[in-house]
């Protein structure tokens, strides 16, 4: 029985890696086909790889997860409002409301996702009879940087775009680290690729559907 479980676990592991490689290649090729830019693809790939430094999880499935997440949030980072030539004066509250809207995906997407992942992580730790050590302190520099970026964006509207890009990237760093450190588990790794397949679908739709 124990041997059977070991073999089953090995098989699922291999399947997860195989599926991750396949999905990563397909996603990369679709991105390349739509964008016609190897440098853009390489840039995203490098940034995705960098997100794995914090959790120290250098595996193909982890890379696919980070890659699909980054590609999914990137379009949200490409902005339609040019704050360099803003229609509102710098004393007009509507300018700051628009900048706030830019950052408000933190409230709609990143925080709810984080909260749900935290709920899952807590339940997982409880089941194992352990307390959950979230390790908040490791995120403090990133959270502080995000707060600074937001304040800089508010204070200097022409920099709002680049601040938002970095803000989103730091949010992704936190999410990836938390997910890889506390949520994901070898037992159900293959099933947990599903939400990232959904994110990959988001990427495909934005690349090809106008």
């Amino acid at each position, binding site marked *: 029985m124990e041997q059977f479980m070991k073999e089953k676990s090995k098989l699922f592991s291999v399947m997860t890696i195989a599926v991750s490689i396949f999905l990563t290649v397909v996603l990369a090729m679709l991105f390349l086909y739509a964008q016609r830019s190897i440098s853009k693809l390489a840039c995203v790939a490098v940034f995705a790889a960098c997100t794995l430094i914090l959790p120290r999880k250098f595996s193909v499935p982890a890379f696919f997860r980070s890659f699909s997440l980054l590609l999914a949030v990137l379009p949200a980072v490409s902005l339609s409002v040019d704050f360099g030539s803003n229609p509102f004066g710098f004393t007009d509250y509507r300018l700051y*409301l628009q900048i706030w*809207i830019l950052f408000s995906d933190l409230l709609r997407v990143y925080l709810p996702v984080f909260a*749900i992942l935290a709920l899952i992580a807590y*339940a*997982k730790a409880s089941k194992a009879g352990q307390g959950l050590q979230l390790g908040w302190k490791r995120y403090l520099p990133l959270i502080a940087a995000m707060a600074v970026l937001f304040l800089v964006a508010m204070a200097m509207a022409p920099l709002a775009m680049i601040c938002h890009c970095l803000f989103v990237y730091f949010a992704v760093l936190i999410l990836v680290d938390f997910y890889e450190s506390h949520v994901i588990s070898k037992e*159900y790794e293959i099933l947990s690729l599903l*939400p990232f397949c959904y994110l990959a*679908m988001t990427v*495909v739709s934005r690349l090809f559907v106008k």
Partner: protein
Amino acid sequence: MNKNEKKIGIYIVTGVGLLLLLGLQFMLHRATPFMKDDFWYSTNLVTGKKVSSPLDILQSQIWHYFNWGGRVFNHAVLQAVLATGEFWADVLNVMATILLGIVICVLGKTKNPLLFLGAEAMLVSFNASIHFSMYWEAGSANYLYSSSWVLFYAFVILRSLDDDAKKLKGISLWILPLALAAGWSNENMGPSCFLLTVFVILFLWLKKRKIDLFLVEGAVLTLVGSAALILAPGNFVRNQFNEDLPFLAMIKSRLMQFIFTSSNYLFPVFLLSLILLIAELTLFREELQIRNVALFAFACVAQGGMILSPTYPQRASFGIMCALIAYILAFLERRLKKGGPGRVFCLILIGSVYLHAITVVMTDLVFTPF
């Protein structure tokens, strides 16, 4: 702080939160005048005169059924709401929002006031098209109002899967108009209600459990309602204006539409629900309830049904979004009951979505598009 004080505190926070959110929404309703189809539906569709009695509505909807479309239930409600005037229509819309929040909580099996606040916030925050599903009268009748009776029907049916559910009084009678209205609501939610009922009947049959009469009535009436909706002569008149594509081009178009709408209109509510489903199937297997999986599947079937539609405006994702919100709330309710640090994360989720909802409504008030 003892338990009672905590409870009072929760009610106060929820009350203040709701007042603020619904108050801002009411202001936005007031800022949104009747427009587009509202003017047409304000009149008797046969005579062209302003609607002044239920007979006008009946006459209009009979004409509508044979000449423009099958959604007679929704448009009857629309005409009734429009007839009350701009102010009372706005009041009714806010009341419909509250009612929908209650129905979502009932479907999610929660009585927690904080989760009710969360439901009201998610209706705004996760909405793909808040204006055309909640503020535009024609849209609100088709989506905001109709989702209440559709989801209530889903609740009544899913209740049969609970081991400890007592039979509701007189259900064999009042299920008849409810099922008919649910089936006759929208082209995707109606048939999904029928399929949900069939699934529940099959499940009970396989488990050798009693199949109550109201389930069979529900299946029949949702099927009748859906058929009446989809096969309405008026739909064929209206479809003449749709572009005819070659078969392969049509398949490609529908597939791309399905992929786009699933990943954009239903983002992030579907992502959150999918994460929770995976968690339920793996980590929380002992808590897994077939009713919750069926609820998630109901939303997926409703989304899948849209592949048969030539058009899929953003507002059409409203009912699917509501079903997924109920699914999320059901999960949060179980986590809140467990207590501990899980409560904090639930509060973070509800708090962040609430703040976003306030942002959305305030933004729309400032940058009013109408």
